[in-house]
């Protein structure tokens, strides 16, 4: 066989291998991609569709195209902006608290002792309580008249506070309940990430005389950074969608001071049956969320590179 023939054979095999390799790489993405596209394609297209139209409630489909009308209406609606502001406040308060608390607690309970698994399982419980029940139980506990919270605080001379009636306190109520429900999630993931850390590096550092503080900042945090970033993004996306807690605890009140954006969209869609306007709002929220998520992702990648 000539060299040229061997060469072409090699090249063909190489191309075939490359193709197979590419296919095997895409096999990893395929199952997930397939399910998501199959289930989400139509709903997302539908939502964008009806956001540009008037909806005919006898068929739930487009009645007539009105272009950007729905969007101008939504953007001109002061309630929409008020709701966004409420959501921003809620996010700015709850996300940092939850991240710090979550990782802090994970660190606390990570000590190797017999009860570790049990304590970890205990921490799961707030996450598992149904949102409606959680909102309701907290409401019961925070009511000025028959609530446990003011009763207990009374013993140390604090209060009574109007947790649900005062505008500012109602926001804190939402933040508290949300933190109570979701910090366990962060603890869960944080624990797993901490467990994932290889012990050798820590031992090497100890031998080199590093103390607790240095180890934290030079080793733990840099190694945990991908997980911290991932957890933050997952949590941020979940927090933006929160509405069941606001619904069951304060109903968006008092006035509209805890009406987060998803609660507002829910009310417009399911109570007022304003599906087209709600769709326009959903698209706007999606775009805004995407942009901010992009910013966060970019930021986290920069941080990852730094370390």
């Amino acid at each position, binding site marked *: 066989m000539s060299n040229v023939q061997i060469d072409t054979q090699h090249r063909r095999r190489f191309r075939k291998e490359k193709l197979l390799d590419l296919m095997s790489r895409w096999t990893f993405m395929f199952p997930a991609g397939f399910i998501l596209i199959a289930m989400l394609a139509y709903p997302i297209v539908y939502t964008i569709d009806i956001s540009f139209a008037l909806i005919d409630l006898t068929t*739930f489909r487009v009645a007539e195209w009105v272009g950007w009308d729905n969007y101008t209406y939504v953007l001109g609606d002061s309630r929409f902006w008020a709701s966004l502001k409420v959501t921003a406040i809620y996010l700015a308060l709850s996300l940092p608290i939850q991240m710090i608390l979550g990782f802090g607690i994970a660190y*606390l309970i990570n000590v190797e002792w017999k009860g570790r698994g049990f304590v970890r399982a205990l921490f799961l419980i707030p996450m*598992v309580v149904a949102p409606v029940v959680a909102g309701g139980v907290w409401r019961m506990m925070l009511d000025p008249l028959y609530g446990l919270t003011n009763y207990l605080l009374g013993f140390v001379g604090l209060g009574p506070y109007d947790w649900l009636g005062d505008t500012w306190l109602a926001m804190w109520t939402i933040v508290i309940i949300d933190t109570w429900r979701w910090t366990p999630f962060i603890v869960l*993931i944080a624990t797993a990430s901490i467990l*994932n850390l290889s012990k050798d590096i820590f031992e090497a550092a100890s031998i080199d005389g590093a103390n607790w503080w240095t180890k934290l900042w030079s080793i733990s945090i840099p190694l945990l950074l*991908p997980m911290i970033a991932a*957890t933050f993004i997952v949590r941020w996306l979940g927090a933006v969608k929160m509405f069941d807690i606001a619904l069951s605890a304060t109903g968006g009140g008092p006035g509209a001071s805890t009406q987060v954006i998803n609660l507002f*969209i829910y009310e417009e869609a399911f109570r007022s049956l304003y599906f087209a306007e709600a769709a326009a709002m959903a698209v706007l929220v999606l775009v805004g969320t995407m942009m901010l998520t992009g910013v966060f992702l970019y930021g986290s990648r920069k941080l990852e590179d730094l370390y």
Partner: protein
Amino acid sequence: MSTNPSTSAVLMRRLHVGQNVRILAGVIVALMFLLPVFWMVLTSFKFQRDIFTTPPTFLFTPTLENYTRYLQQSNIPYQMMNTVIVAFGAGLISIFTGSMAGYALARLRIRGAGFLGVLILMSRGVPPIALAVPMFLVGRSLGLIDKHIYLILAYCTFLIPYVMWLMRGFFLALPKELEESAMIDGCSRLGAFFKIIVPISLPGLLSTLIFCVILAWEELLFAIVLTNRIATTVPVAIANIAGDTVNGANWGALTAVGTMTVVPVVIFALLVQKWLIQGLADGATKG
């Protein structure tokens, strides 16, 4: 390097004290977090007239009525079974598909995969309310309304992105040599993934699975819209009781159902804990 016995003994003692303080703090925080749960369980044993007293009562005539009434008379056991099927079905499918996708994002350099991944993550930004109605319309035309499988797939749409991004984080933290050495030995990519990466990442996988099961367990909106009677789940039952605009929400019943739904998941988590530790032990002995 000074390793004389007295300093290392002091170090050990300081270590122990530090650790004990951490343990104690952890337990205290756990108990604080559990206070509402304790209140919920307590309330589930009260008659309705004892629930809204001023001041709140700790001494009262207890009753099992809230539990027996709901276990015997209502549909709750059946709905519980549905919830288990749907939550675990969605969880397992999501873990399976999502971790593969997460691995692709973390390790495999595929053009466009990163972008696709980001796109999938962004899909989490769509308010679920916007998705419920069109999903219902599609399901109705396919005859899949009130079927478990449709609800499971609907849940996968929000679980898979989470799994993908969380597992990506876990995989990124693993050293690259692991699968490279396996592939040099003649293993295929898929093989390397399942034989090497998966067992090592068991803590991450299991934690993510717990998270997925929990999320699916308590999901309400899709369950209401996409099911009627056959595939209806416990969150719907809870919403039914809570939204009782006729007799007033029965908080005794609600807290009873709330307590009942907490128990299976906690048991599941406790069981999985053992695997978690074991998986870790095996991983540590990989050498």
